[in-house]
């Protein structure tokens, strides 16, 4: 054999070896990639199940609201929810900002009704599961929450006296109200019950409220709080619908992994895996509603020229003294059952700049994001968490993730699988 031939043979052996290595490595990468996309450990399956809509427990009873589960109350609440007479200018209803076709949000950074509000409109769907309402959780029941916008000058802008009188004056409302709560007080005596009165910013209305006797104020508060209770009964009907993600998990739990791959793409599955592992989303966005309903500072910046939002740290006292809280005279709960309010966290330092974790169901349909709508797209939201810069006030609980651009895209692809119309949207998604 010539030197050249030996050389050739050596070269070809080397080339063969290299080719062999490339094939094996390729197979390994293919295998590990496939495995990563579709194979779940027992522990991971348990996590998937914990996020699955099928794992959502029955609605917890709202002991503060005696009509929470009454269909008649829900129907009455639905009418009020869409009724623009419940506003100072006759043009604003709850549905003006909580628009059913937009999953009960409005698509704006900050809500705009009579004026612009301080924060972004959150969705209502599934909030019956939360012990706290609003971004800062300054209300401890859905009915108590529903009352505040009615008197906020930038939202409905009215006063409780006006609303109580409307319930009593409208024949249809009166009949439905009395079937639920008994006789409605007679508000026709303008000496006892002025045209407009309430503990609100409007000084004339406020003065009229202060001039009323305590007993008369109580009559008005009773009707006002019942308006909140029927609205809450309606809001309790707004439940999230089944998404592609839920179908995928159901298929995994049934052992039909082959079918499951037709439900989610490889990228979506990889995004899901990142969501429950390295991206650490699960730390706050956990449970079937993808929220722990707790308060976290994640280093969000205010809009230029605005002061940073103090969040949860500012509302502790307000919660404790709110006449419409669980302890108060208008709550139907026994005081000793008010566990959430009694044992809520009160150390303000940790709560500086902390806001309630929102659900991620329908997240791709509910832009913009965060408590002031500061972030316009999911891509930017994920970038925000990937960087986790220092907070302007308080302490950013998030830490930099170091994920690659393609990994962030995969998480975004997964988040897009969480879309679905809410349950019974035809019955509950429009004015009755």
């Amino acid at each position, binding site marked *: 054999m010539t030197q050249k031939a030996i050389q050739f043979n050596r070269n070809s052996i080397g080339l063969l070896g290299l080719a062999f290595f490339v094939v094996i490595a390729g197979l390994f990468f293919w295998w590990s990639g496939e495995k990563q996309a579709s194979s779940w450990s027992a522990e991971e399956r348990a996590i998937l199940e914990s996020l699955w809509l099928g794992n959502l427990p029955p609605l917890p009873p709202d002991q503060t609201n005696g009509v929470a589960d009454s269909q008649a109350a829900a129907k009455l609440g639905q009418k009020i929810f869409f009724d623009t007479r419940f506003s100072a200018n006759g043009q604003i209803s709850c549905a003006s900002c909580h628009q059913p076709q937009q999953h009960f949000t409005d698509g704006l950074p900050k809500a705009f009704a009579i004026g612009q509000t301080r924060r972004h409109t959150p969705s209502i769907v599934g909030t019956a599961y939360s012990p706290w309402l609003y971004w800062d959780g300054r209300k401890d029941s859905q009915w108590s929450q529903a009352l505040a916008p009615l008197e906020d000058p930038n939202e409905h802008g009215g006063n409780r006296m006006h609303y109580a009188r409307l319930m009593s004056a409208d024949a249809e409302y009166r009949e439905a109200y009395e079937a639920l709560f008994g006789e409605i007080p007679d508000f026709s005596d303008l000496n006892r019950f002025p045209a407009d009165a309430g503990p609100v910013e409007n000084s004339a209305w406020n003065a009229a409220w202060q001039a009323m006797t305590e007993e008369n104020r109580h009559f008005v508060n009773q009707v006002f709080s019942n308006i909140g209770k029927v609205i809450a009964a309606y809001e309790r009907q707004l439940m999230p619908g089944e998404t592609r993600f839920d179908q995928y998990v159901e298929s995994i739990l049934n052992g039909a992994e082959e079918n499951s791959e037709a439900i989610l793409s490889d990228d979506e599955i990889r995004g899901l895996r990142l969501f429950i592992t390295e991206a650490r989303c699960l730390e*706050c966005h*956990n449970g079937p509603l993808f929220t722990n309903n707790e308060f976290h500072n994640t280093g969000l910046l205010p809009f230029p020229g605005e002061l940073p939002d103090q969040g949860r740290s500012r509302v502790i006292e307000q919660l404790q003294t709110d006449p419409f809280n669980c302890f108060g005279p208008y709550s139907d709960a026994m005081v000793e059952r008010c566990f959430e309010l009694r*044992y809520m966290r009160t150390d303000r330092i*940790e709560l500086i700049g902390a806001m309630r974790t929102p659900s991620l169901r329908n997240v791709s349909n509910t832009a913009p994001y965060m408590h002031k709508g500061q972030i316009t797209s999911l891509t930017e939201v994920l970038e925000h968490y990937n960087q986790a810069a220092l907070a302007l006030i308080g302490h950013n609980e998030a830490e930099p993730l170091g994920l690659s651009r393609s990994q962030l895209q995969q998480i975004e692809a997964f988040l897009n699988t969480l879309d679905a119309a809410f349950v019974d949207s035809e019955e509950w998604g429009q004015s009755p």
Partner: protein
Amino acid sequence: MLNFKHFFIQIIAGTTFLLAALSVSAAEDVWQSSGGSFVVSYSSEIMPVPINQIHQWVLHIENTAGQPVENAELVITGGMPEHDHGMPTSPVVTEYLGDGNFLVEGMRFHMMGYWEIILEITQGSLNESVLIALRI
């Protein structure tokens, strides 16, 4: 290379998790106080300990001779040291149930992961703390 990296990270993370879980459960749910005077165990109204649900615990406290501790003052705090934050609630011991058992109301955990509950026990001149570790 990215897949290799993830593969090893997952193996390491999985092993760490498994070891941590084993070490917690191997402790048989009995916890000794800092000065050695008290032995504490707990039971939760809901087992396994749930996330995102307010619930009650019963703490059982004995002295080293195995006698139930009765007249103790208890203060409960806790949190997730890895995340540098406390509990989402302020739990309180509300009732002595007898036989060394104390009712704790307002327990709530809002994240999965490693938690530490710190129980401060004062009995007469003794003041000791107990660290209860649990993974949810």
